């Protein structure tokens, strides 16, 4: 079974745009019900049963995160981060059931309070076809600096 790779790319770029512009509700609407939003800590393949993660959100936890960011009193995002990210090196694989596995690299420039940071990594999306588009079932972000000191990762990554 094939998939229109342009459509997959478009989805990935749209998600990046929502993250860049702190469009929390639109971003949250891209997720499937049974979601996993995962950013490992220290090592890329750390077992969540025995190793801490930077982010390991199911739906209720991600809901907390989004509500917090929207509430206007999340000091670490007041003011909000200004961001743009480039997405590249996209690889698409279609599974037998029609779900799509996407791997891509990103390079993100983030500025807040006069301090500019760069974050880079490889993202693995598990997408499920949904009408003419997709929903994100899971997203795992392997940060290049996941074992380094990070000041503030409260924007969407």
């Amino acid at each position, binding site marked *: 079974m094939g998939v229109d790779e342009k459509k997959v790319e478009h989805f990935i770029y749209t998600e990046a745009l929502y993250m860049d512009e702190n469009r929390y509700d639109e971003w949250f609407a891209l997720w499937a019900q049974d979601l996993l939003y995962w*950013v490992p*800590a*220290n*090592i890329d393949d*750390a077992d*969540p*049963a*025995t*190793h*801490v*993660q*930077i*982010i*390991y959100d*199911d739906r*209720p*936890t991600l*809901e*907390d*995160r989004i*509500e*917090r960011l*929207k*509430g206007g*009193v*999340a*000091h*670490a995002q*007041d003011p909000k981060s200004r961001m743009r990210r480039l997405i590249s090196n996209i690889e698409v694989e279609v599974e037998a059931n029609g779900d799509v596995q996407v791997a891509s690299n990103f390079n993100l420039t983030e500025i807040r*309070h006069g301090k500019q940071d760069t974050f880079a990594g490889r993202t693995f999306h598990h997408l499920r076809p949904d009408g003419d588009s997709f929903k994100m079932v899971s997203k795992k972000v392997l940060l290049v600096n996941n*074992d*380094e*000191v*990070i*000041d*503030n*990762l*409260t924007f969407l*990554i």
Partner: protein
Amino acid sequence: MATTKPGVDYSYLVQEDKVHGSVFTSQDIYEEELERIFKRMWVYVGHASEIPQPGDYRVTWIGDESVIMTRDEDDQIHLLANRCRHRGSAVCQYEAGNASYFRCPYHGWTYSNDGSLTGVSFPSGYDERFRKEEYGLSKLPRMGSYRGFIFGSLSPTGVSLDEHLGDRVKEMIDLFVDLSPVGEIEVRAGVHKNGYHANWKFVGMDGYHGNFVHQSISLDRAARQGQRPPTHPDRSLNLTRSLGNGHVMLDSRKSRGGRLSNRRVAEWPEDYVRELERVRGKERAAELMQAHGDPHMGIYPNLQLIDVHIRVTRPIGPAETEVFMYPVLLKGVPPEVNAARLRHHEWFYGPAGMGSPDDNEVFERNQMGLTANVDPWIILARGLHREQTDTDGTIISNHTDELTQRHQIFRWRDEMLQG
């Protein structure tokens, strides 16, 4: 007044009810506190469970000095300066690992994991006056431990670790560890590495800030679930408590609610409860679970036991700090208990958590505010009139009172005043 730098009068800078802002901003004071606090006091360096096997090592810090914590083939733990005795290169460049020897990259001098010098390359360049046994990696002057928590001191003299901690702190370390039915924790679940651009002493122990710094979670979440927002009221079962020697706690043992986690698996598994009650007795088991094994305690100067994690503060500069958080696994519990502890931790703590980044943000605003010196004082007077001595000799006050910050900065002042 006994100060090494003329002009710095620490008993003026730290008074009963206020602290001078320069204590948090001055480069001179920072350099002096590295010497007097970090190079003289007992400083936490790591936990024995981080190096469980012979040959395991971990690189750690005392102030700005690099230290290797090793376990040798005879199961002895050593704290060694991470510096080749020849020309000073760091002999260990990885944070952790297993090695039977450390080989200096510069000229190949080789040390065993107990620190002794085992080999010098091209030894004919030295005559019989060169004695290898005199050139092992330098051992730290003092090392001590309590329940696997290992402390080092760069000073050969001073109070013992026992005296430094005192019985009250040890009881609280017990609270943290005894939640494991076998009485052992494992510090092998990774680490959240946080940083912020402000003074290390802002990592205090503050019962006043929760309603404000963490407003984003307490209000929003409760409102969404149609609940009354959890607050940290002025009067509650919670207390601030000074345990002596600058060690302090936010004592919320009675109000934690006894749940395993605020996420997912919230209840303690039955077989765990049975086992804990069998080992510790019903009363102690209930007390441990009620408190969630959380002393919420700062052990001066660089260690905190908070919630399910060990927190280590490392000063980098007067306005630069690293805070490492090590969530702790309990030994001898069903795996879902430890998984729940990890998810509980991530929710609030770490660089993407819903609490820690707001703390860091406010610390940075403190540092910015302290640039304005028209009136240089920070007020720590809250609750000064209502401190009480508890039956065990510790000092208590309301949860929002600044008892904890006062006792930390008093200890800081006393160390800085010592000649």
